[in-house]
């Protein structure tokens, strides 16, 4: 028994060591971005991140400070645009997706199975295949270079629908019956009785949707045409040109675009993981 226990603790120690090394490797790129943000961008783009840049000395705040002023404050405009889009996309997607998810969960109606299969289909078919016709559609609706054009095709998120449905199935029907006895209409039952019960689901989806919106790249790349409408990812990508002279903005800007997500993650880590796994993939 004793030897078994020492073997056990040896395995634990070994695993601990393996994960320690792995985690340092996974965090290393983020650490190198952190330090790079305090150094001249032009040198970094020419020589890359070197051993010297990884030693935390001779750090200068001027590259971060220049984000506010360089190119007439373009970076702050991108930041504001990204924030506006996060609010629009998260608000609309939560509202519509929760309605659909709830509808699929609690009502028995003709076509329910078909609709749910379509949700799953949309969930797996990559949007990249449909970008050309979506682009034509946007031109038809005269919505190119607008925030509505970015948000409209995705106001109902299949993933969020799936998530809300799984969550709503778990709510006892007694709550719905009680609402009916109180004389509430179907809409009233959802907004007054069910929605408050689904708060954790809203929390998890809000964080996940906001993250996706903040990092969204391909579709905004196609929709947005002018610099004043750019979001952070699109603006930063536009700085990757070989003739660019704004590499400070690219690198320090990358850090500042990532920081809010990291902070939110540290506060709400539980919700992140729950958002990915609840509703389970139990086959």
């Amino acid at each position, binding site marked *: 028994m004793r030897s078994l226990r020492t073997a056990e603790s040896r395995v*634990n120690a070994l*695993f*601990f060591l393996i*994960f320690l090394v792995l*985690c340092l490797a*996974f965090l290393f*790129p*983020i650490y*190198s*971005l952190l330090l790079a943000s305090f150094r001249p961008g032009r040198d*970094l783009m020419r*020589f*890359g*991140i070197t051993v010297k840049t990884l030693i935390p000395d001779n750090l200068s705040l001027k590259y971060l400070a220049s984000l506010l002023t360089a190119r007439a404050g373009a970076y702050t405009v991108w930041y504001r645009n990204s924030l506006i889009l996060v609010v629009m996309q998260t608000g609309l997607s939560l509202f*519509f997706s929760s*309605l659909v998810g*709830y509808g*699929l969960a609690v*009502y*028995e109606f003709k076509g*329910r199975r078909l*609709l749910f299969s379509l949700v799953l289909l*949309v969930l*797996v*078919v*990559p949007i*990249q*295949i*449909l*970008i*050309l*016709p*979506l*682009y*034509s*559609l946007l031109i038809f609706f005269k919505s190119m270079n607008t925030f509505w054009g970015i948000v409209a095709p995705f*106001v*109902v998120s299949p993933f969020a*629908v799936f998530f809300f449905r799984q969550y709503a199935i778990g709510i006892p*029907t007694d709550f719905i019956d009680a609402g009916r006895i109180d004389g509430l209409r179907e809409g009233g039952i*959802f907004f007054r009785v069910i929605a408050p019960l689904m708060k954790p689901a809203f929390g998890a989806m809000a964080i996940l949707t906001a993250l996706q919106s903040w990092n969204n790249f391909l579709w905004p*790349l*196609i929709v947005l045409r002018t610099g004043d409408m750019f979001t*952070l990812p699109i603006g*930063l*990508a536009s700085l*990757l*040109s*070989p003739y660019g002279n704004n590499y400070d903005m690219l690198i320090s800007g*990358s850090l500042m*675009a*990532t920081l809010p997500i*990291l902070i939110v*993650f540290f506060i709400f*880590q539980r919700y*992140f*993981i729950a958002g990915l*796994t609840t509703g*389970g*993939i139990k086959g």
Partner: protein
Amino acid sequence: MRRSIGSARFSPYLFVLPFIVTFLVFYLYPLVSTVIMSFQEIVPGQTHWIGTLNYERLLNPFMYTAIWNSFRYTVFTILILIPIPVLLAVMLNRPGNPANVVFRGAMFLPTLVSVVVAGTIIRLLFAGSPAAIVNTILHPLGIKPTDWLLGGSASAMTLLVGMAMWRWTGVNIVYFMSGLQSIPRDLYEAADIDGASAWYKLFRVTVPLLKPTIIFVTTISVFGGFAMFEESYILWAGQSGGGSPNNVGLTMVGYIYLKGFQGGALGLGSAIGMILLAIVLGVSFLVLNLFGFFKRDEA
């Protein structure tokens, strides 16, 4: 559990209406219009049918390169990003190590970083200069300083797959750990009583019972792998000529972007999209078949 409600015949449809509308307008219509456009030549102001000419035009080396790159990327990411995260998830799932939560969080962190930022970091770490950190680390191992971005097909694929590993290992670990939660504990206790080794338990208990999760992750990896574009766009953005040298980073969606958006050939771009859709559906059908997914449904 769920009952039909006589007084509320229409309200269910009101709830699901947003999905019906967006599905028809933003999924079904685009899908149908891709099929139609792929047989058309579309010039502003005039559109005409050209039969299968768009598809014939795709019998060219660029298309072959794009398919080959997307295919290799998908295969590599699946071969690496399924077995390793399964193993790591099993290791993290052992009780009695409070640091495991921190480890899981640390490996999940790269998932939060946008593709633009991730690509920028990768470009800086894998820069071509001998002083760049990756070249410095590899030098004592006898590997000469490489220009990773411009150094040819193999180094380009290494960067793309490496970036995928950095960004997606943590997510897959989370998926597999949630799958592990649903495996009953007593199965392991029974195996222990039978004196089963750790490897036996891994391959005869854990992996078979994790199959639904493995199927799920493999399927999303097939779709995600063939649809890859943003990573290569960022890594080679702004190279002279606007793309990767010798198309080492050209993917199928990249080819749609090149022809459809930059070249304005909507018909040709749609034909690429159709081929991509056919390949993705075909491959995922094959994968599901391989796992015996359809057989289980019949039983």
